[in-house]
């Protein structure tokens, strides 16, 4: 008895660590080790295969003198700004409307959330057809009689990136809506009643009381959407394949083609590091301020 009790206690103490160990190991190797490895490669002169020498920041200089990379960075900026703003805004609006105790709410919620279940490849392919002037929206409107109607953004270099925004917003809005809806459901109904009695109009109640209470939901939505925006790769490939020309190039597609198509592994690694630093520069301060505040008890 005196021996078996400490043993079972010891197992109990170690069990959580044992269970967590494999995933921790995988994360350490597959994420952090390869981040370090990529960082190292970005400082080497690697071309088609990794080379472990040191050339300082040469690859970064080459990267930033590539016009295609400038396009990619600009596109990422346009895409993530619009994608985040539209998805958050529409998701919040839809959640507020769904929260008004309407009929068939469950069905509507499922419909809005359904695009999230598709892969970006499917979304990209479907929207490629919808946006194709000869097959999709333009053709339908033309066939209905409005023959002068033109909607060919996907074929125009200046507008093609907005097509990517449309498809990505369509895919992710339901998801943002679901998170906001959960947040709205957590709000004590009597808070809204109290504001009503004080004479506040419904838009004002939402603007000054309800939306500020959704801060945790905003945190989740913004973090998850930024990550979707920056890693967006499959959607671009399926929808526009970085075209027309290189008009919809994004850092992720640039990194892929530099590393695996154009045998410039060093430049590819440098672009990957730039992406990592961008993400860190945006997310880390945001996370820090939000988490710090919640630790202080708000």
């Amino acid at each position, binding site marked *: 008895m005196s021996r078996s009790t400490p043993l079972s206690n010891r197992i109990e103490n170690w069990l959580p660590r044992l269970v967590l160990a494999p995933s921790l190991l995988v994360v350490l190797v597959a994420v952090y080790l390869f981040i370090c490895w990529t960082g190292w490669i970005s400082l080497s002169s690697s071309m088609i295969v990794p080379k472990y020498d040191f050339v300082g920041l040469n690859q970064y200089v080459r990267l930033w003198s590539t016009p295609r990379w400038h396009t990619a960075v600009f596109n990422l900026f346009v895409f993530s700004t619009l994608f985040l703003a539209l998805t958050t805004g529409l998701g919040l609006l839809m959640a507020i409307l769904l929260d008004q105790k309407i009929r068939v709410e469950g069905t509507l919620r499922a419909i809005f959330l359904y695009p999230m279940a598709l892969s970006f490849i499917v979304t990209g392919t479907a929207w490629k057809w919808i946006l194709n002037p000869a097959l999709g929206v333009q053709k339908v409107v033309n066939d209905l009689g409005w023959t002068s109607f033109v909607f060919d953004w996907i074929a125009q270099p200046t507008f093609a990136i907005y097509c990517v925004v449309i498809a990505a917003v369509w895919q992710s809005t339901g998801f943002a809506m679901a998170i906001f809806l959960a947040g709205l459901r957590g709000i004590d109904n009597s*808070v809204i*009643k*109290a504001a009503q*009695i*004080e004479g*506040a109009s419904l838009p004002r109640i939402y603007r000054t*009381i309800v939306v*500020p209470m959704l801060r945790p939901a905003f945190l989740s939505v913004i973090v998850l959407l930024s990550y979707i925006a920056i890693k967006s790769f499959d959607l671009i490939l399926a929808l526009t394949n970085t075209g027309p020309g290189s008009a919809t190039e994004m850092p992720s597609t640039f990194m892929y083609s530099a590393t695996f198509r154009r045998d410039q592994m060093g430049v590819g690694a440098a672009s990957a590091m730039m992406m990592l630093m961008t993400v860190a520069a945006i997310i880390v301060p945001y996370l820090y301020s939000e988490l710090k505040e919640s630790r202080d008890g*708000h």
Partner: protein
Amino acid sequence: MSTLEIDRARKLYGDLEVLKEVSISIGTGDFLVLLGPSGCGKSTLLNMIAGLEEISGGEIRIAGKVVNDLSPKDRDIAMVFQSYALYPTMTVRQNIEFGMKIRGVSRAERDKAVKTAADLLQMTHLLDRKPSQLSGGQRQRVAMGRAIVRQPKLFLFDEPLSNLDAKLRVDMRTEIKRLHARLGTTIVYVTHDQIEAMTLATRVAVMKDGVVQHLDDPQSVYDRPANVYVAKFVGSPSMNIIPAKLEVKDGNAIAIIDIPGAATAQLAGIPVSSQAAAKYAGRGILVGIRPELFSVTGAASAQKLSVNIDVVEPTGPDTLALFQAGGVEVTARVPPRAVAARTPATLAVDTAKIVLFDAETEQRID
């Protein structure tokens, strides 16, 4: 002038009638408590007064004006909720100011009103905190401050003390009473706690299944409950309801109660009209006796019961003695150490305060 008249108000959810023609009328400065168990419709009635629920039938008038179709903000009311309903992202000051800001009150006036309310509720030091940094009692105080600055015709309280611990509840109860005395505003207060109702109210409406069972001042509700339900709901321990037989001797009503293992008790001097006594003579009735009507010594004129005490429960200031009479368990409140368990005792009853109920309808017999 801030009277409240509820005139045959009804509330239907589909075919379900949760309020059945409720009529209550109170005057300026009254403190009306709607008392009842959960599901009796008391909160629904309060929400209808506030305008948060539609009125399916009848009328509600505040200060003589029909408010059926007025939105909550136009009814000149302020409400305090059970969950406090403070705006969590605003400071205490912003919470109190919010309504005035919406009504476009000037900054100087807002500051003055906030200061007055904060002084009144002794929370000046809390004004720049967020609700999450306050204790339950402080939050409740802020909620009341928010209601006070509105200077409404009618205050509505929806179980405001239910979320507080027992000691704080007693303190806040006193505070609400003091507030009412100072402001003199008409108050409607919903609770399921009969002690809150007794201590605070000037008028109590005991409700059950959407019907007002008894509407009167608290002492009358306690002394002469309208029916067995009210008798049992108000008072702790509740009123003893003992099956008995009524007999009339020389025009005086006498209640005859069987007591196991002892002589039948014959209680005379019960206040009941001679017509009622004649009507119920020789029939079974229910005798309502509050536990404190029993005494061990008893006045000379008091009627006596010889009983066998089963259990004794000391509460400190006095002792509850339990015994069998008329086939039910009866509780008597007697001085400490006056009786012992499993021994016979003779208890006197102050029969002038006994209430009789009809055995079938359970309504009071006058």
